[in-house]
């Protein structure tokens, strides 16, 4: 039978009533850890400050463009005399960058650092958030109170309007007639009576490699220029030119006497002068031709003109020039150009007015999309029969790949900056640098910008 009892009295006698006054390992450890760990933390901070300068204060890694200035916080964080704070001001940014305004009548201009957020890691500073744009464009206000653009855009996916060129009532303003459908048919008559199948890049290329299959001229392009073009991206398709893309098939012969010789692809006045010169030279060399009667041209069924008989060389030249111009303006030129009769004997040719950039306020890079077939986006091109057809892909085509969440959602970048620029770089002015390498890299004191 257990004789040990645990009465309160017995238990109380066991306890040293002053026990709390004596040191105990647990309390001792707690005390010393509470002293040493904060001291260690402070020591770590002081060491970091001593070794890396102000870098320890940095709230994050600098962007790629500014990473080189990591040691020199004072380049952006300028301390004014007598002030404690060293907040980043636009003045510090403008020391190196000119940044023209967006629009003259924008309601307010945000500070540089509002959109270009630093200390967010090795990001591109121009990759601004949509919120930077929608801060205004979600409820667009202008100084004159009249927004000239859609006033409620919140993102590329939300409320972004269809591209301006595709909105109702818009058409291709080109003065040159072109039927894409016909040009993409098989077995077209090509240069030198060969049968060809044309493809889009026979006429449309972002980078001019110098040779075009249906042109008459080879433009020598230096390999270095090609490389420069590749590096720069060559975002846009150059507007087709007659000599590069058309002349191989669309020949400009004017008279059988001259074989395959062609008139220049130029203004009617130039063509007229060319014809006069040609026929004058011919009649000088062939005086007997005055009395020759032209055989009917079987290759030109439209030719219903009865050749006029000339009495002298001057008349002969005039008649032959008339015939050649009739041929050109009634058939050859008319095939592509819109000719307007005038009081002048020569017609007026409508300006070609080819659109080089369909999106005036946005940017696009064909080179970045080179892995895609042309018709993947320009799907209507193969069926387009009218010049007025706008073959720009619609916004829904872009949205198949581009989403605001971008790479995070396994999509292509879809934030505003991908296509739009805030700064109007046409207004940019050159900036004059003044820093030394030591000042940029951290070996020397940064001068405080004046003004």
């Amino acid at each position, binding site marked *: 039978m257990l004789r*040990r009892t645990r009465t309160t009295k017995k238990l109380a006698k*066991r306890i040293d009533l002053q026990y709390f006054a004596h040191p105990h390992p647990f309390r001792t450890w*707690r005390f010393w850890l509470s002293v040493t760990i904060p001291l260690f933390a*402070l020591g770590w901070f002081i060491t*970091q400050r001593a070794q890396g300068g102000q870098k320890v204060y940095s709230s994050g890694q600098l962007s790629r463009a500014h990473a080189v200035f990591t040691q020199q916080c004072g380049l952006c964080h300028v301390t004014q005399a007598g002030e404690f704070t060293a907040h980043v001001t636009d003045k510090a940014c403008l020391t190196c960058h000119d940044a023209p305004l967006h629009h003259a009548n924008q309601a307010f201009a945000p500070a540089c650092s509002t*959109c270009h957020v630093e200390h967010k890691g090795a990001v591109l500073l121009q990759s601004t*958030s949509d919120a930077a744009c929608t801060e205004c464009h979600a409820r667009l206000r202008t100084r004159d109170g009249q927004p000239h653009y859609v006033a409620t855009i919140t993102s590329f996916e939300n409320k972004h309007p269809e591209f301006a060129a595709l909105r109702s009532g818009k058409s291709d303003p080109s003065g040159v007639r072109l039927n894409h459908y016909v040009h993409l048919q098989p077995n077209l008559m090509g240069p030198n009576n060969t049968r060809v199948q044309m493809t889009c890049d026979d006429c449309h290329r972002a980078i001019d490699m110098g040779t075009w299959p249906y042109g008459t001229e080879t433009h020598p392009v230096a390999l270095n220029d090609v490389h420069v073009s590749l590096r720069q991206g060559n975002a846009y398709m150059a507007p087709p030119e007659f000599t590069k893309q058309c002349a191989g098939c669309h020949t400009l012969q004017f008279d059988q006497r001259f074989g395959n010789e062609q008139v220049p692809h130029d203004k009617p006045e130039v063509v007229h002068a060319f014809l006069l010169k040609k026929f004058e030279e011919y009649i000088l060399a062939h005086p007997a031709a005055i009395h020759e009667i032209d055989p009917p041209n079987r290759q030109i069924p439209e030719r219903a003109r009865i050749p006029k008989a000339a009495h002298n060389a001057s008349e002969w030249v005039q008649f032959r020039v008339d015939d050649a111009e009739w041929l050109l303006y009634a058939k050859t030129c008319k095939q592509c150009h819109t000719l307007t009769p005038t009081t002048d004997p020569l017609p007026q040719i409508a300006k070609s007015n080819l659109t080089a950039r369909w999106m005036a306020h946005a940017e696009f890079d064909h080179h970045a999309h080179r892995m895609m077939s042309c018709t993947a986006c320009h799907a209507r091109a193969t069926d387009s029969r009218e010049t007025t057809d706008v073959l720009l892909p619609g916004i829904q085509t872009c949205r198949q790949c581009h989403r605001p969440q971008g790479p995070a959602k396994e999509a292509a970048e879809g934030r505003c900056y991908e296509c739009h620029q805030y700064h109007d770089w046409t207004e940019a002015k050159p900036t004059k640098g003044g820093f030394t390498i030591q000042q940029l890299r951290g070996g020397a004191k940064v001068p405080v910008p004046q003004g």
Partner: protein
Amino acid sequence: MLIDHTHRKWFFGSIAGLAVATAAYIPYSLRSPQEARGGSALGLTYGITAFLFMIFVGLLGARKKVPVWRVGRAQSWMRGHLWLGFVSFPLILFHGGFHFGGLLTRALMWLFVFVWVSGILGAALQHFMPRFQTAQLPLETIYEQIDRVRGQLAEEAGQLVEETCSALEGEVSRASERQRAMSASAGTQGGLTVASGLQANQQVSTQLRQFLDDEMLPYLERAGAHAMSLGNEAQAQAMFQRFRVLLPPELHSNLDDLENICEEKRQLDKQSRLHKILHGWLLVHIPLSYALLLLAAVHAVVALKF
């Protein structure tokens, strides 16, 4: 501290505060051109609020040091410590826009992670373990007194063994000359029981002393000593059972006491282990909290400057 219905106000207050902070954060982070960041007006609000909470939470130590301060009940301070400390971490996450930032802020965030997690772990331990301890350790004592009590147990065990041995040896000394002679010639003249018994008592006494010296005292005097035979309840029972067979029934109560002493020692060891778990987190939580407060103050000054 038991987290019970008395925490209801603090709990709902904290949850409501956190809900408001979250409701403000979501549109702010979605619409802010710069994303959520500490330097914005709302970001600063989160940061300042959380820092004030952290200071209050850190003052609990001072409040405990000076219990006579008339600045609210200790329990209220403890509840405030618990809930404001809990809420301050999400506020700091909102403050930094869920980014850990640069070197100093990253260090601060990791410190906070350790402090917060250790705090939650500690709160959970403090909630569940005391009840478990009470149920499991009826013989527990004040933790700081365990060493002292252990010494007392060793002393008590020594006395008990001495008492038992004396009793055994006293029986031997009270035996008659004839019994002693019979004992010496045991097995030749009969009276085997008495003779063997006398011899056995002396042997048991020696064995008991040896048991005290070799097993009990080393076990009682050493903290822990789980690897020793007496540290295991089953083995201890078997050992005492052997002595119970050898000792006369009237001395069994002494054996029971000795066994009880060992049981108390086992419970003290267990209490010691549980105490280390119950309070060990404080060795991480408190020092890191001070380091956090110190560096947070540095961060506040630096943030104001830059």
